[in-house]
């Protein structure tokens, strides 16, 4: 079994990938604008929801419960979906899933598919795998279409093209849709996409989607969307294939009353997104005649096995943590080298990859906690980040690593007051040549990583303890006087 999350195994470290992005003023302007708008809208619709915290708590409890009995709920879903005329497939990893989908498409005699935006298919690299099999995949979400035609990478979980502005989109559409006179108003660009895709909606026989929720009780699948491209792909083709992570299952139909209040407000700042679709297997005279669900593991069970990080699997992919993150807002999602970016990406990607890749991602955070505050399912992302930093050190680094050695030494010094005070005295003596006006500007060696982007105050001439002792002595002296 080989776990793969998009191209993240080959991606450079976050810190390396971020540098050129920080130089791209246009990209940073686009990202700042988009995340500001969504955050403002979200804050308004969350503020008017008086039971927001109660909804978060129930959602979090529901997800935690589901994960404890994940096997039971998946089997229940399989049974109900199958009884309703659907077919359920299980995929251990990305290649498995891609092979199952490609075989299905070919089995139905298709060489083209229309797709709803699904980050899970980006995770498995489905489009490339289908292309390899001679099957052409058409993305139908506007942002995904921009990414596909522009041969770009998604930079956000909900709005993958938010790093592009209108004139950049116009250039992509002009060239790939052969529309030399296309204007750059969002209305013009949207209308162009509508015309470009409508013919495909009415013609292509196989649709591919992800899943926002799988309902165990009924075997239903729920898709949340805005444009209607989702409804087109769910309704018009003869065959529908849904690729879903195993963590997408929820116990009951009623649970949707909680999640469908949390997700749209968190994702796009709307009270409800324009369209939610639910369907159960195959419906007579309405929609596809054949329905398949591919349940994907691809590392999720190893996340489940880590009790302290398991809550990562609560995620409903709303991207509120991306919009709120001071790090994401500077670099965009392109620095994270994965389908999943921002704070949630920083914990999802390395865990799916069993901490073998993406080790730099848990460090792509200031631990300010903004992500936890906005998370609709209460994932304590800072806590998981710290836990994963611990795992990176414990599992990946040898004992001879310079940082590990320094930390061991620090632990020994901190363990004894005598040693600590001796180190302080030594430090005061040694810092002399490096200090300018009470500040370190550049530290040598490994410590330079800290001072490369910030200054560090020098050690003071006297510690508090020394001052306290001195004070007592002075008092004694003046008392005698």
């Amino acid at each position, binding site marked *: 079994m080989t776990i793969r999350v998009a191209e993240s195994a080959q991606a450079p470290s976050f810190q390396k990938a971020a540098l050129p992005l920080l130089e791209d003023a246009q990209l940073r302007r686009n990202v700042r604008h988009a995340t500001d*708008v969504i955050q403002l809208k979200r804050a308004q619709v969350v503020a008017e929801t*008086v*039971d927001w915290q109660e909804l978060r708590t*129930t959602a979090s*409890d529901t997800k935690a*419960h589901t994960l*404890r*009995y*994940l*096997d*039971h709920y*998946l089997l229940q879903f399989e049974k109900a979906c199958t009884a*309703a005329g659907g077919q359920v*497939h299980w995929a*251990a990893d990305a290649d*498995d899933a891609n092979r*199952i989908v490609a075989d299905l498409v070919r089995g139905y005699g298709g060489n083209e598919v229309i797709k709803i935006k699904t980050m899970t298919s980006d995770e498995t690299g489905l489009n490339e795998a289908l292309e390899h099999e001679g099957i052409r995949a058409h993305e139908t*979400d*506007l942002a995904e279409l*921009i990414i596909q035609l522009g041969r770009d990478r998604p930079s956000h979980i909900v709005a993958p*093209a938010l790093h592009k*502005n*209108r004139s950049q989109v116009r250039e992509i559409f002009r060239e790939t849709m052969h529309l030399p006179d296309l204007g750059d108003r*969002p209305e013009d*660009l949207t209308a162009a*996409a*509508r015309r470009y*895709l*409508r013919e495909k909606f*009415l013609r292509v026989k196989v649709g591919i989607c992800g899943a926002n929720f799988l309902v165990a009780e*009924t*075997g*239903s699948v729920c898709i949340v969307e*805005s*444009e*209607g491209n989702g409804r*087109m792909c*769910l*309704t018009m083709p003869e065959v529908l294939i849904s690729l879903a992570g195993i963590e997408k299952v929820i116990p*009951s*139909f*009623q649970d949707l*009353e909680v999640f*469908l209040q949390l997700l749209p407000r968190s994702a796009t700042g*709307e*009270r*409800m997104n*324009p*369209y*939610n*679709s639910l369907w*159960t297997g195959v*419906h007579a005279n*309405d*929609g596809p005649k054949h329905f398949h669900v591919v349940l994907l*593991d691809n590392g999720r*069970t*190893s996340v*489940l*096995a880590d009790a302290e990080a398991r809550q990562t699997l609560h995620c409903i992919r709303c991207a509120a943590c991306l919009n709120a993150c001071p790090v994401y807002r500077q670099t965009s999602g392109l620095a994270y080298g994965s389908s999943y970016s921002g704070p949630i990406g920083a914990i999802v990607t390395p865990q799916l990859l069993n901490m073998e890749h993406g080790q730099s991602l848990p460090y792509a955070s200031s631990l300010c906690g903004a992500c936890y505050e906005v998370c609709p399912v209460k994932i304590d992302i800072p806590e998981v980040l710290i836990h994963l930093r611990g795992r990176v050190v414990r599992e990946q680094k040898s004992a001879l690593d310079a940082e590990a050695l320094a930390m061991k030494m620090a632990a020994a010094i901190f363990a004894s007051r005598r040693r600590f005070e001796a180190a302080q005295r030594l430090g005061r003596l040694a810092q002399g040549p490096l200090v300018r006006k009470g500040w370190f500007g550049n530290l040598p060696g490994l410590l330079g990583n800290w001072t490369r982007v910030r200054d560090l105050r020098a050690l003071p001439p006297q510690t508090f303890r020394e001052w306290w002792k001195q004070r007592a002595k002075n008092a004694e002296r003046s008392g005698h006087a």
Partner: protein
Amino acid sequence: MPDARDAILERICSATRRGADENAPARAAEEFAAIARPYLRAGRLDAEARLHLFIDRLHDYDAHVVETSADSLPRTIANVLQQHGQRKVIAADGLPHEMLPRDFEFLAEREAGIEDLNECDGIVTVCTVAIASTGTIVLAHGPGEGARRLSLIPDRHLCVVRAHQVVETVPEAFDRLAPSATHPLTFISGPSATADIEMTRIRGVHGPRFLDVVVVR
């Protein structure tokens, strides 16, 4: 791949430190029932305020709202269709006849092909339930609500909502939808829209660009 299925299930059992356990379904049901639901389930508004909120929310989504009485419903529908110059209009199968204006000729859904849907000026449906707090109309695609494609391909959707179908909260809507849980369900909140380009909301991408809601008091 039956072996992938077994392997995944086994990995889940070992990850959650549970062996194969015959009592798991019963225990899961017990624990699930114990999950606290302290959020608002029942609404607090009276009927008038609820309708007012619903209409207000619809306006927020740029939906066009007309209020009428049961007696004047056919005339109101005729007026709305006329106002937008709609000629070729498809009526969902199973729509109550007394609802439709007699002097207007509708195309029946069962006789309409994809081309008709693509070319028509609009469609008429009823709904199963409507949610005031979110301005949402829910179609369970039963009689009068049309197959899913009917309210998707045409450019204009006229939906008739009766006052007693409007609930205040999302949980109240789910209570009413429980009998239809395995139907295809479509939640519609305003016309189709996108904000993918610079977060500017554009109405009408692939679904209907216009949503007319006729509220019957």
